[in-house]
């Protein structure tokens, strides 16, 4: 799963029937240098492309979330659901110690 910051939410008036009552977040991937402090202070929005992510956890603005992309994003659903990215975890702490050399 990748690490991202919730920078907004998306609402849709017309959408697939499978998405009734769904929550959608705008998630911006967090760069490695900001991982350590990301849970305490919102990191700057990175240049990495942001995604619309399905949310079942109730993540809020500036929460640091783990999200999964691809076929695995549909696994939690009983019915076939056209979802390509889903939140899997809301992080409380991230410890990042890059390897040197």
């Amino acid at each position, binding site marked *: 799963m990748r690490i991202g910051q919730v920078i907004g939410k998306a609402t849709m008036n017309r959408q697939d029937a499978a998405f009734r009552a769904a929550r959608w977040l705008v998630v911006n991937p967090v760069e490695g240098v900001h991982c350590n402090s990301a849970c305490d202070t919102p990191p700057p929005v990175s240049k990495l492309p942001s995604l619309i992510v399905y949310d079942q956890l109730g993540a809020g603005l500036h929460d640091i979330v783990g999200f999964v992309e691809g076929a695995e994003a549909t696994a939690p659903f009983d019915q076939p659901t056209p979802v390509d990215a889903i939140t899997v975890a809301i992080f409380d702490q991230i410890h990042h110690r890059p*390897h040197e050399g």
Partner: protein
Amino acid sequence: MLLCRVVGNAVATCAHPSLRGSSLKLCQREEADGSATSEPPFVAIDHFNAGLHQRVFVSTDGIAARGIVDDEHSPVRNFIQGILDD
């Protein structure tokens, strides 16, 4: 399978139920020469207790990951598959 180095860990109390009991490790992809790639680290579940800065193989097979956490509705995908000795 991705060649990675463990560069940290992550803690999440609010997560998909299938992650309960799994430790979450930050993994940085590496080039063949051991240098880190430019992409940000990602999170993989770890049932091998890999240590900080150990080199590991990470699988991206969602079917195998669902077997590991024993939950067919789990969205997990990345898991540490082995720790490199050398």
